[in-house]
């Protein structure tokens, strides 16, 4: 017990006041003048009241009230908070936050953290309550204890380093919610972590209420080298019917030590295919390019691995690779085309390898069912052969999932059959007015064709001038994707069966507009063709803690997943089989481990296993630490004042201790109650005397 204002205890000397009052007050409050005390002094018995307390309860009440008042103003507090907790509530409650993000696997950090957690539990008494919370990106309760802390010890021993990144926010929030429901006065959060800077942005908005303390226990590992494979890139080249893929790995040295003779190995389907030896300067980066290999339609599992260092989790990088989706494009031009009407189109589609466009240009007279075989997209460049066999072939092609782009130029003619395919009808070309050029005025940026242009400085579609266009009247206004500034339709879409039809109301050369001369032309054409060809960019790897929709992944690969029939099962990198549940349209799978997940459909007629490469988030490899005191201060709103060895203790100042305990309030209330009782009692006594 200590006092914030001990000098005020001198006021206890004033206890003599009520004593004197009791002894003398009633006689002295009234003085009677008398001629002579000659006879009164002869009386041996004068006033017995002066020499003894007349009402002990009243006297004791006054003394007690006075003592309580003095004590309250002296601002007492208990210095030994543990004994206080035991006195008041019989114990304390702590929440042990144990960081198990994969950076804790660095060197012997995890072992240190387990030891620190056990030591913390050792300090608990039988009346104390402990909760172990294991956290990385998310937080979960590992164990709770009451009288016996064995369950917590066991949970600490069972806990393993995970594959996710550090996030302090959820863990602190969980600890807060646990302790806010606690009835203990002594509540404490012990945070055991390597305190990575990436784990705390400062925007978490976690704030502990008064009475909850945060004690950080930073775990510090030995300073060792750490090289991280941050990403792998692929350069694809068409090679016969397959692709030739060159793998380029990017490595970062996260430590301040130079790394020499580092072996970097490329494994494909579990076999080492190439190894290189490199040096990386301190805090430097390196790119390692391996010889190309051929990839067919089958999925190939690859891993780039480096020799072991202090942090194992970022020494490997998994990926899956298969031949990229080739988009076969058939350009159909009029029988007597303008000389270079398809020039810009062909050149635009010849550029790029994600995907690789395979283009063929024919005249409209050569269009038939056979030539449409294997095509993904047909571009009718200034022609509209919707009547006759060619028309039927096109309808069937689109209905089966093909894409059709109709470019309305000078030569195109309207036939009634066109209304079966196009989203509307077109008329004669508008007059070319040099003074009133048109521009694109409205674009539906939510459509896949235009979403890449949505971001600022990602392509200005309105820069192109349109001198002529064909008026196009849509049957469904919602099918319009772009309009000219005068309100006329520029691009419209219609869905037939599983395929799409797009109508461009001007040309894709330089006769009716100068779009082909603008930088936005190439991505615009690519987006049109990708959309019509249903191109999905292949995902070579995923990141831990991602949640994937398996159904959509199957759909992208051309398979329809049916839960009841296919009975899909995921096999984790650790070999555990996880039944996948959900609905037919949404089947979710959480990726918790680094490595290769395999999804099997044992119930399907043909089991098509799907491999998913999962890598840990590389931001965790950055081991830069933050100041634990800063974190504790921002969460508790109080300063951390003392550092003890490696452990940062949240020592409270006398002001803080007194402020938190606020014993003076209880004393003041007790004093007021006593004074009230004293008033009632003394009033009763006064009335009785009268």
């Amino acid at each position, binding site marked *: 017990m200590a006092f914030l204002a001990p000098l005020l205890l001198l006021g206890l000397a004033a206890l003599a006041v009520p004593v004197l009052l009791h002894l*003398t007050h*009633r*006689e*002295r409050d*009234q*003085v*009677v*003048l*008398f*001629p*002579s*005390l*000659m*006879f*009164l*002094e*002869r*009386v041996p*018995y*004068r*006033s*017995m*009241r*002066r020499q003894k307390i007349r009402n002990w309860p009243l006297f004791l009440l006054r003394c007690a009230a006075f003592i309580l008042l003095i004590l309250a103003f002296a601002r007492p507090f208990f210095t030994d908070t543990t004994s206080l907790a035991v006195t008041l509530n019989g114990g304390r409650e702590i929440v042990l936050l144990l960081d198990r993000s994969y950076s804790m696997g660095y060197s012997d950090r995890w072992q240190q953290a387990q030891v620190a957690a056990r030591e913390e539990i050792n300090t608990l008494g039988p009346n104390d309550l402990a909760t172990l919370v294991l956290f990385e990106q998310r937080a979960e309760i590992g164990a709770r204890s009451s009288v016996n802390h064995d369950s917590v010890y066991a949970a600490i021993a069972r806990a393993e380093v995970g594959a996710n990144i550090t996030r302090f926010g959820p863990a602190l929030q969980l600890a807060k919610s646990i302790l806010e429901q606690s009835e203990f006065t002594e509540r404490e959060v012990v945070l055991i972590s390597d305190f990575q800077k990436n784990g705390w942005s400062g925007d978490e908005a976690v704030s502990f209420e008064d009475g909850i303390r945060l004690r950080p226990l930073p775990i510090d590992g030995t300073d060792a080298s750490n090289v991280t494979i941050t990403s792998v890139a692929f350069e694809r080249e068409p090679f016969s019917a397959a692709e030739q893929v060159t793998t380029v790995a990017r490595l970062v040295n996260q430590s301040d030590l130079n790394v020499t003779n580092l072996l970097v190995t490329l494994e494909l389907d579990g076999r080492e295919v190439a190894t290189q030896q490199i040096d990386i300067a301190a805090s430097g980066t390196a790119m390692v390019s391996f010889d190309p290999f051929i990839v067919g339609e089958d999925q190939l599992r690859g891993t780039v691995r480096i020799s072991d260092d202090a942090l194992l989790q970022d020494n490997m990088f998994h990926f899956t690779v298969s031949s990229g989706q080739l988009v076969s494009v058939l350009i159909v031009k009029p029988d007597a085309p303008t000389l270079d009407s398809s020039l810009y189109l062909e050149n635009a589609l010849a550029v790029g390898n994600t995907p690789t466009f395979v283009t063929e240009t024919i005249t409209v007279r050569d269009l038939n069912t056979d030539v449409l075989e294997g095509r993904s997209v047909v571009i009718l460049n200034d022609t509209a052969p919707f009547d006759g066999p060619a028309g039927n072939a096109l309808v069937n092609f689109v209905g089966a999932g093909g894409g059709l782009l109709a470019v309305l130029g000078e030569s195109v003619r309207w036939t009634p059959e066109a209304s079966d395919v196009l989203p509307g009808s077109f008329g004669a070309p508008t007059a070319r007015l040099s003074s009133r050029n048109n521009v694109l005025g409205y674009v539906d940026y939510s459509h896949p064709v235009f979403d890449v242009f949505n971001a600022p400085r990602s392509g200005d579609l309105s820069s192109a001038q349109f001198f002529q266009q064909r008026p196009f009247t849509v049957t469904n206004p919602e099918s319009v994707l772009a309009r000219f500034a005068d309100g006329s339709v520029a691009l419209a879409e219609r869905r037939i069966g599983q395929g799409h039809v797009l109508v461009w109301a001007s040309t894709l050369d330089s006769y009716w507009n100068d779009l082909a001369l603008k930088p936005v032309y190439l991505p615009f054409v690519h987006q049109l063709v990708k959309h019509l060809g249903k191109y999905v960019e292949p995902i070579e790897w995923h990141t831990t803690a991602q949640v994937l929709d398996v159904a959509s992944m199957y759909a992208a690969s051309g398979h329809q997943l049916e839960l009841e029939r296919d009975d899909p099962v995921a096999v984790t990198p650790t070999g555990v089989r996880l039944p996948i549940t959900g609905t037919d349209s949404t089947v979710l799978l959480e990726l918790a481990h680094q490595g290769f997940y395999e999804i099997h459909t044992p119930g399907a007629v043909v089991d098509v296993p799907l491999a998913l490469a999962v890598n840990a988030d590389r931001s965790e490899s950055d081991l830069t630490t933050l100041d634990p005191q800063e974190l504790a201060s921002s969460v508790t709103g109080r300063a951390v004042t003392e550092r003890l060895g490696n452990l940062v203790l949240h020592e409270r100042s006398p002001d803080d201790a007194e402020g938190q305990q606020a014993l003076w309030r209880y004393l003041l209330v007790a004093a007021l109650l006593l004074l009230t009782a004293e008033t009632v009692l003394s009033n009763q006594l006064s009335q009785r005397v009268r």
Partner: protein
Amino acid sequence: MAAQRHTLIPGASFVDPKVLARIENLELVARILVDGFINGIHKASYLGVSVDFAEHRGYMPGDDIRRIDWRLYARTDRYYVKEFEADSNANFSVILDVSKSMGFSSGGLSKLDYAKFLAASLTYLANQQRDRVGIVTFDSEIIERVPPSAKHLDVVFHTIDRAIAGRPGLLGGPLLRMTEFFKRRGILALISDFYEEPDTILRAVKQFRAQGHDVMVFHVLDPAELEFPYDAASSFEDMESGERIPIVPENLREQYKKLIEEHTSALAKSFNEQRIDYAVFNTSTPIDYALFAFLSARERMARVR
């Protein structure tokens, strides 16, 4: 004038002291009080030149030979001297205690006021009898002295009027010094509250008696001093010494009354033995009634003597 009828003496009307307190003119007060009295109720205490024959006595050397009754010498052949009774021109002095305790009042007239009225009445009465009147006021010392004279009535009244109770009092010293003033025998009226031991008081008063003075002692007390009617426990402060003692009156009232009664009884007994007239005057009692009762008793006693 308000008056109240007292049952002790039927037919006599007496004046309430509270009413007298409102009258500022002391002479008027005295006249009101005394006018109903019998004129010349007292006789001269010694023989003088008068027309009334008193007795014959044998001639002694030194006697004036003119006072020899020659007719009786002729009949008896012995020298006799004729003596006459003198009924006036006696010296009458009031000895008034103006010590601080005399200023006490429990609600009505203070003891000093009462004593003033008493002194004024007696002086007026004496003056009516053609006595010489004088006064001495004292506390622990002699404060003022007016020698007896037939012309000093106004001065005496004025002196009485000015008297205030200011300082602590003492009987022995002042009274001893007063014996030097009263060479000629006369009548002395001592008015005090007598807060001293009876022996001390008697020793002081006895000197006057030894000088041959006719001494009347008036013991003035407030009703509160006689009855001690206090209830609340209080600090009692001595008016003269300032000393305080806490008192619970209910516990010592009876003892106090017993002590004060013993005190007055002792005084009465001692004074009686010395043939000194003594009376206790309660300030709640009408002055004229008390005066009348006292003088009546004195008259009766004088006849006995």
